[in-house]
Every structure is written in C-alpha cells, then in structure tokens.
C-alpha cells in the first residue's frame, strides 16, 4: 500500500498547483469573490487538470495491458502502430467528412486503431518466440510505415501541422470545458481493464497456461485490443499522443510490485496521472507565459527515466 | 611458456579471480578444469587478451599480452571463446578462411588456401564447406570454429569448452587432434567440462576453484579422489585403465 500513499501524496499538491498555475493569475482568495477567476477555473483550469489526470491514468493502463498481451515489457500503444492507425482513421474522417460530429471521429479512430493493433499482433505471432527484441522493433517499424502513410496524405492535403500534434506532441493548452469529456470514456475503458485484471495477468503466462486455466486466450486478447485501441484513439482525438507514459510507468510499477494486475493497476493509473501532471505543470512553467507541449517534455523526461530503468539492472529485463 | 603473475579480476563488485599466478608449459596439452564459476573462462580470456587485464601480468612465450601488438599475438596464439554468434551469413569455408587473416590481412596466398583445406580435412568438414553456418547443427558449427582456430596456425591454441555440443565420437576425435598438434610442436590450453577428457588426453592439468588455483600437475597427481573431491565438493571414485586415471563421477 505504500506506493499508493506516496502517489496520492504527490498527486494532491500537483493537482492544486495545476489549478493555480497558468497565464492568468488565480489566487485562493479571489476564487470565490471574482467571477472572472471562477470562470477561468470552471471553464479552463479544472477541465484541463482533469483531462491531464484522465489521460495519464488511461495511457499508463493501456501500456500495461499491451505489455501483458504481447508478453514484452518494451511496447506501448505509441510504438506498436496503434497511435498511427488511429491517426490514419482520424485523418480519413477529417478528409471525407470534416463536419462529422466528434463521436463519429472517435468511433472511426478507435476502429482503425483496433485494425492496426490487430495487424501488429498478427505480425509478431510469426516471429520466432525467443527473439523478444524483435517485438518492439517490429512495432516501431510498423509505426514508421503507418506514419509514412499518414504523413504522405497529410502532405498532399496540408494537414501536417495537425498530424504532428496527433502523433507526437500532445498538449493540453487547448482543453476547455466541453472539449475533453471524451476522456472520461477512455478512463472507463481503463477501468474495464481493472475488472478483467486477472485475465490479463493469466494471459501473460502464455496461451497454453491460459487455456489450461479454462480461459479463452483469444477472447482476452480481444478485450485487451478494445481497451488499448479505445484509450489510444480517444487520447489522440482529444489531446494528441503523449509518448512514454505507457512504457515508463508500467515498467517502474512492475519492478517494485510485480505483475499482479489486480494489485498494481490502480498504482499504475495513479503513477501515469502523476507523471503527466508533473510534466504538464513543468511545460507551463519553463517558458512562462508560453507553453511547451507535455508530449515534448515527456519525450525528454520519459526517455531519461526509461534509460535509467534500462541500465539500473545489469541485464535481462 | 605462458606466465600468469598476480592476476586478479573483478566484474562490478564481484571478484572473479583472486591473485592468480600459474605457469602453463610449452609443447604440452594443458587442461583447465574446475566447477562452474571457478574462473576458467575468465582466465583463458585474459590470456587471450579478449578482456583488458586489470592487474598482474601475463606473457606468452615472453611476449607481454598488453605490450605486444595484437597482430603479432595473433600469430603466436589462437583463441576460441565460448560464445560464437555471427553477425554475418557465412559459409563454413569462408569462416575457416578467416583464421588465416593474421597472415595475409585480406590477400590470401596459395599457402593460406592449403592451410584452410588442411583444417577442414582435420575436422571432417570438407563436405560441409559450402554450407551456411546457420544451416548446420550445433556440433557441426562448433567444429567449424575449431577448424578456424586451427587454421590460424599459431604456436598456442587456447580453446574454451570446445567439446560443448559435440557427440562422443567427435569429442574424442578433437582431443586426439589436440594431441597430434602437440606432436607437431604446438601447445594447447583447453577448458574442458568433462574431467575424464582432461584425465585421459592432457599432459598437464590446472584445476581452479572459486577464482583460485586449487591444484596443478600431471593427471595422475590431480585426478585423485582426494584432490577432485575437495574441488568439486563431492565423493568421487577414481580408477585406472590402460595407465590413465578415470574418474567415475556418475556413480
């Protein structure tokens, strides 16, 4: 229980800080007397803080589910073609039906993400089993291929700007009330993973063991596919991809607490929320009053943490 | 003669070798034996300058392994290490031909081709010469690597567990081959897993335990139930067949 306490101890002050920090100054005292401040709080700060927490938690959970499905610690939705497929779907809707309501965009992006992730799962099934290093490599290359398609279309249609936000530099500066609520759905999908936590834990023991324990491995796989794809697609539709959350947080948690998801998933979610929130606040402060996207900050911070993880132990992993 | 003086070696905080001093005689087949983790491979790698020397001094026929240019050492000794994974797709003959590299640096002569052929014959690899290494069994691949070390034509041959993955027939053949090399004036240092290969074929045995030299001498002196029992921490019976000690460690 100790990690949970530490995380909550971190998350509370960070949340408070996130509510107070921004281009427009907000004071504790003015909040209740000044209607303008109250408006900023309810329309901008609170939604933004919630969006950050939901995104961080959902992405971390999606990461750990992906890792259990593939039985490899070095993958996350951003490195297995999931994010690129979602972007491809989103791009298609944007081009074909620009006026479509956001839920249509979301559904199409989710379906595309599922298709891309399913393709990845099919590909790695054909790899020799002991080549565990090839799994992340195949994922990265599939991401690259799909990314090339997205870039090509984006180039031809002058949508590159949008695409780079979707795929790499997610940011929360545009989040206001009414434009982030889809993220609650992402959190819902992550919660679904918690209810099926034991199934994912068993799945990571291998197909034979899963079947032996009376579970249908393909059904668990499909459930995982839905969780990962929906979370990724929703995050991309609302704020853009944020790298490394799904990779770094589950790795740290697994190192400290093992892989019993029933026990670790809440910690993973809280860890993801804390990390993204800390990075978002950092991004707001570094070049005040301008903002550095949280995706960029996490690219630097997350990769540093990951390298530290990779080299802290002699070998293996 | 290979002279090892005051060599210690650590990896991280773990000390693998503790102040080792030993002399390995020239013109003989010397076997390095000992339990897992005794430091045999580390010692052999240090002699073969595959790892940087941390302390002490090692010389091969008077040539200091730190001071002497690597290319000169390559003509003095050939070392075959335990892990041999290749990055390139090579045919057997191509791999063995690389053994001649120290002599021709990329421009093989007729003499080099002849030496390669001799090595292939010695390990019965002629028929496999044009096969890719990845298409061979573990034992066949092991033979190809031994052939390569052989083709190097150095005075000293250092082999780290060359018998791993070999069947009985080839294991005996390799050991016999090493004895033939000695007759031709070469010296061999070989790490062996099965103590009986050392007992039967070696002229000299160096036994290690926990990073120290535990015993050394001719097989008759080292292969006794007392000495080996201490080193391996188990009860052993040693018998004698045709004048050679034979350790009955399976019983």
């Amino acid at each position, binding site marked *: 229980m100790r990690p949970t306490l530490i995380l909550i101890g971190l998350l509370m002050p960070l949340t408070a800080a996130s509510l107070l920090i921004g281009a427009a100054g907000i004071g504790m005292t003015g909040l209740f007397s000044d209607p303008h401040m109250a408006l900023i709080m309810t329309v901008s700060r609170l939604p933004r803080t919630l969006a950050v927490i939901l995104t961080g938690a959902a992405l971390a959970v999606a990461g750990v589910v992906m890792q259990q499905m593939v039985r490899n610690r070095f993958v996350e939705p951003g490195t297995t073609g999931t994010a690129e497929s979602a972007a491809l779907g989103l791009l298609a809707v944007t081009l074909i039906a620009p006026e479509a309501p956001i839920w249509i965009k979301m559904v199409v992006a989710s379906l595309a993400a599922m298709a891309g992730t399913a393709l990845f799962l099919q590909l790695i099934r054909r790899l020799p089993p002991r080549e565990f290093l090839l799994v992340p490599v195949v994922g990265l*290359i599939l991401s690259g*291929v799909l990314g090339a398609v997205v870039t*090509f279309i984006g*180039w031809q249609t002058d949508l590159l700007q949008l695409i780079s936000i979707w795929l790499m530099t997610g940011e929360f500066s545009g989040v206001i009330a009414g434009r982030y609520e889809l993220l609650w759905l992402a959190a819902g999908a992550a919660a679904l993973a918690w209810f099926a936590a034991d199934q994912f834990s068993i799945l990571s023991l291998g197909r034979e063991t899963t079947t032996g324990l009376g579970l249908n491995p393909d059904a668990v796989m499909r459930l995982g596919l839905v969780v990962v794809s929906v979370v990724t697609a929703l995050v991309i539709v609302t704020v853009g991809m944020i790298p490394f959350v799904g990779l770094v947080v589950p790795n740290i948690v697994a190192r400290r607490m093992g892989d019993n998801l029933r026990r670790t998933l809440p910690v993973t979610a809280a860890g993801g929320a804390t990390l993204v929130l800390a990075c978002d606040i950092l991004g707001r402060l570094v070049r005040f009053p301008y903002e550095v996207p949280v995706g*960029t*900050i996490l*690219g630097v911070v997350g990769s540093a943490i990951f390298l530290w993880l990779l080299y802290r132990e002699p070998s293996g992993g | 003669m290979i002279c090892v003086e005051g060599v210690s070696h650590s990896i991280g905080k773990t000390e693998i070798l503790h102040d080792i001093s030993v002399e390995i005689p020239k013109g003989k087949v010397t076997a390095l034996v000992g339990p897992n983790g005794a430091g045999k491979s580390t010692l052999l790698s240090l002699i073969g300058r*595959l790892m940087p020397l941390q302390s002490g001094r090692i010389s091969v026929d008077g040539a200091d392994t730190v001071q002497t240019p*690597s290319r000169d050492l390559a003509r003095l000794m050939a070392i075959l290490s335990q892990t041999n994974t290749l990055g*390139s797709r090579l045919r057997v003959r191509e791999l063995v031909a690389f053994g001649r590299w120290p002599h021709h640096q990329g421009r093989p002569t007729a003499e080099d081709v002849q030496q390669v052929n001799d090595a292939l014959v010695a390990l019965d690899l002629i028929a496999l010469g044009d096969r890719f290494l990845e298409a061979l069994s573990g034992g066949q691949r092991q033979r190809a690597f031994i052939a390569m070390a052989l083709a190097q034509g150095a005075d000293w041959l250092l082999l780290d567990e060359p018998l791993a993955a070999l069947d009985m027939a080839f294991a005996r053949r390799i050991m016999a081959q090493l004895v033939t090399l000695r007759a031709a004036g070469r010296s061999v240092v070989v790490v062996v897993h099965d103590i009986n290969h050392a007992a039967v074929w070696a002229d000299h045995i160096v036994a290690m335990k926990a990073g120290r030299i535990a015993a050394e001498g001719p097989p008759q002196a080292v292969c006794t139930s007392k000495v080996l029992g201490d080193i391996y921490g188990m009860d052993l019976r040693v018998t004698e067949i045709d004048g050679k000690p034979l350790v009955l460690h399976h019983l």
Partner: protein
Amino acid sequence: MDRRLTALTGALVVACAAYLFWGLGPRWQFILGLRAPKLAGMLLVGAAIAVATMVFQTLCRNRVLTPQIMGFDALYILMQTALVAGLGVGGYAGLSLSAKFGIEVVFMTLAALMLFGTLLGRGTQDIARLVLTGVIFGVMFRSFSGFLARIIDPNAFAVVQAASFASFTAIEPALLPVTGALCIGTIGVALWMAPRLDVLALGQPIAVSLGLAHDRLVIVALIMVAVLVSVATALVGPIAFFGLLVSGLAHELTGSARHARLLPMAILVGCLMLVIGQTLFERFLGLQSTLSVVIEFAGGVFFLWLLLKGRMR
C-alpha cells in the same frame, strides 16, 4: 555476381541520363543547371546512407539496425538546434554553410562516439538493450530539439518541425562541394577497409584473436557512420528505413558476406532507387517532395517482409 554489379552500374548511368535529359525543352541550360546539383545530391545521399548502414550493421552484428533507428539523425537535428540555441538566430544565420556543417559534423562525431562507442566497443552481447537505448535516444533527441526550439522562440518551433521531414527537392547546392568531398573520402576509406570490416563482423573475440585492432576499428567505423549520416541528413533530412531497404537488397543480390562486394552493391542500389524514384515522382506523377515518405513506406514494408520470412538471421 560481378555481372550484377555491371548491370546495375549500367542501369544507374541510364537512370541518371534519363533524369538529366528527359524533357529538357528550349531552356535546357537553365533546367540542366537545376537538375545537375539535385542529381549529385541524390547520388551522394544514396551512397552515404548505403555505406553508413552497411558499416553500422557490421558494427552491431545485426541486420535489423540502421544508424537512423539508433537515433543518429535525431542527434544531428539536435546538434543543429543546439547550435541555434548557442549562437542565437542571428549568429546562426551569419555562419558560412561549410563552417556550420563542419561544426555540426565534429560535434556529431564526438557525441556519437560518447554514446555508442562505449556500448559497441566491448562487443556488447546485449543487443536488445543496445537497440532500445538507441531508439529511446532518438525520441529523446527529437523531443529535446523541439524543447530547445520552443525555449529559444516559441514561434520558431515550425522551423525544427520542417527540418524533421526529409525532402529530396530541397538539396542545397552550396553544401555539395563540402559534403561531396567528405562523403567520397569516407566511402573510399570504407571500401579500402572492406577486408577488415569482414573480420569485424565476426565479433570481438574472433576479431581480437585474429590480431585486429578491434577497439580502434570500432571507433574509426563509428566516425565514418557519423560523418555519412551527417552528410545525408544535412542534404535531405532524416530518413529511417531507406538504409534497411538498401542493405536488405544488397544482401539478397550478392548473397555474400564480403564487404568488398556488399558495399559497392549497396551504393548502386541506394543511388538507383533514389534516382529512379525521383524521376518517376517528378516527371510522371507530378508530385513534389514526398519521395522520402514513399521510400520510408517501401523500406518499412520490405523490412517487415524480410523479418517474417526469417531472412534476418
């Protein structure tokens, strides 16, 4: 096998001629003046990436890696951004192209040696960790470039953004003499070292046992890779999977492990693909500046196919 080399050389000459002279029209002098530097740039990039990838794969003893996958080009972009950060936008613009390029290559080489020299030097067995390190470095450098750019000037981010997509049409003619000299020199050294690279490919224990100055050769090879990647990235921007496509095809076409054969084959394949691709794009499809994306796509697909066919071992 030599017949294949000859045939490819012939094909390359024809392709170059077609690119230069097809549909010249009355203002031929002007058009030719535009096309020639572009062609030269493509040939340089094709050859540079081909050799850099081959040498790098030999260093890592692994055919699924390229310097780009290991974050080399991201490192180059970071260098460039850092230079802007260090000198300020005015100072940066004031530098002559060759001075700028020179500084970048030197820094890049030093950084590459620091990062990868220690990883590769001791014949690292743990390839998985090596690959991941490289990939992560790539993301880190890219993010850090974006971060630096925003710190310098929140609006200058677009400049870095533009630099992270490759384009074959934007080859800067003024860079050609410097990059050309560096590139041809380095490739010459690589060809001259071909027999030693063959030995290097056997791994550290065998290479040392055969008397090769292993560690020194690793450093030299890393420098060559750094220089060639700098050249290619400076000319057209980052391209990740093109090298894989080239090295994969070169291996398929030669069926040999000898660098004396592999390197020329890779160079020919690389140049030929770029020239033919660009000709098709410019003259027939009427598309601009997106060849790199298509090559990325083709390279990635080809690589996945190789991987699944089990040809990577």
